[in-house]
């Protein structure tokens, strides 16, 4: 059990770092998929099968594949100069320093705290479904409104003007 956790956790951390630092968009996205898959392994080891399955189906399956297709279709996987400039240490050193302090803080906190395992039992999808449609019904409805706002925004920001002239006749 434990050895699986460590393997999955190492893969997750390495691939996440790679996903951030790769300048080629396709490589970064493939790394991100790997990281999501390994996180779902971690969740599975914690007996949260439902959320592990959701992680694979929704994130790694649907969203990331969509991302990759869009990136490939639009052909924006090329490196650009601006991004290269952002990778010099001057840009990220201060942020990394403060993030490091926060990280040390978290490690100390976890070491000193006596945490009892919150839920030892396996939570099945049936229970999740029941609580979603009874106790948290309102939250689900609000999530629907949130998606609606997102879709309308995507429509507005992504919509193109109707063209009167054919694009070959337009003056450049």
């Amino acid at each position: 059990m434990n050895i699986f956790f460590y393997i999955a956790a190492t893969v997750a951390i390495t691939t996440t770092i790679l996903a951030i630092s790769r300048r080629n968009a396709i490589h970064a996205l493939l790394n991100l998929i790997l990281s999501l898959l390994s996180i779902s392994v971690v969740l599975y080891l914690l007996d949260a099968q439902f959320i592990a399955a959701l992680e694979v189906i929704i994130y790694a399956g649907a969203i990331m594949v969509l991302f990759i297709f869009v990136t490939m279709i639009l052909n924006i996987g090329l490196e650009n100069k601006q991004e290269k400039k952002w990778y010099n240490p001057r840009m990220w050193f201060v942020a990394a320093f403060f993030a490091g302090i926060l990280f040390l803080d978290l490690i100390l906190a976890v070491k000193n705290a006596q945490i009892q395992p919150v839920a030892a039992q396996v939570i099945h999808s049936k229970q999740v479904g029941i609580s979603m449609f009874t106790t948290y019904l309102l939250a689900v409805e609000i999530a629907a409104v949130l998606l609606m706002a997102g879709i309308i925004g995507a429509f507005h920001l992504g919509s193109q003007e109707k063209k009167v002239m054919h694009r070959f006749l337009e003056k450049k």
Partner: protein
Amino acid sequence: MTETDFLSLTPLLIITIAPVVIMLIISIYRKYEIIFGFSLVSLLTAFVSLFIVQPLLPHRIDHLMVFDLYSLFFLGIIFFSAFLIMLLSHDYFKHLEGFREEYFIILFTATLGASLLAVANHFIIFFLGFELLSISLYILIAFQKKKDYPLEAGIKYLILASVSSAFLLFGMALIYTALGTMGFQGIADAISKMGVASPILVIGFGMMMVGIGFKLALAPFHMWTSDVYQGAPAPVSGYIATVSKGGVMAVFIRFFFDIKGFSNQDFFIVISAIAIFSMFVGNLLAIRQQNLKRLLGYSSIANMGYLIIILLIGNNDGARAAIFYMLSYFVTVIGAFGVISLLSTKNREAEKIEDFKGLFWKRPWIAIVLTLSLLSLAGIPLTAGFIAKFYVIFEGVKSGLMLLVFSMIINSVIGLYYYIRVIAVMFSTGEETTKLPSLSIIGNVALTMISISILILGVYPGWLIDMIMKLVAL
């Protein structure tokens, strides 16, 4: 869900149904004036429904939401501010090319997010409201997608608000790890039983503070404020300064009072440091500002600093003073952004201070409203800002928060300088440079409402203070 649940949800349901109906209207017949009228009527209906809901109170829905006089009062503030901003947006977006009716849909979803924060009693509703507000604001900020500044501001807000949401969510997760509950009441009970706070809990609250501080633009998390205020359309800047901050403030005050944050020494020190830092950073950065929108952005940082001081008093008096301060600040700042949005034309945003040169001699009425707003921000008697500052300082002195009160007084003096500078520019005589747009009836109505509110709150605030006394008992 019982019948009472549905009835007490009425104001939120109206706000939820309105954008769907607007979408249907758009799909049948796309006309700006119709959508605008429908939006105004829906907001008014939601506002009136607050009075109908009132006899049902207090009512809880499954520990997720709580409807009491406090949340109802905040809903009233949010709807009122959104109503004024909607009136002011009419002229601003009238001339926009392309689709502009979507603006009202997104304005409704953003208002729903803020209202959810006002009724939240559980981390899930808190976070969903927070996200709904953020996502709607990205779209509102970048609404004029053809221009450079709005897009830049939108991307900046998108990235920084996502980071702050991540902090908030991580903080909530840590608190859940430490206590095993996500309802505000459950957390309060668990903390009072625990005695000494575990380190995980402290880090969790710290991270939540980052998320909340970002939305309120408090000092170490204020970097986005001036850029976003400048880039966003003027009514949207007003929206960020009022409705968005009002919602977050409502949930912050409720959570802070539920967990009795003020009795914890660490919390007290952190919040006073943030408050003093916000005041000085906001005011000092505003001094040399040549852009009125950025100036108002910086002044909002300082004003939020004044506002959270008073929560440290930790009793109902403090909360009441904070709420009165917030209400008067909202009315005032909507006035200032309203003037900017009414003076802006299709191609040019009236945001530079020199744009206002000699405004008094060309457009006395608009100049008077702006003067009133700026005087109220500076805290000159007969305006809302004076009573609000007086109330806050009074409560501060009464409970002996001397350091905070003194830094507030010093900062009020600094603030006076840059507000008066803008007023002086307006009254100076200068040659005619730009052509000012004509004022529509709707804009006039909005300006009249705002200036009357500022004056009433400044001259005769007794009834409102009595009302707040009666409503707000946390």
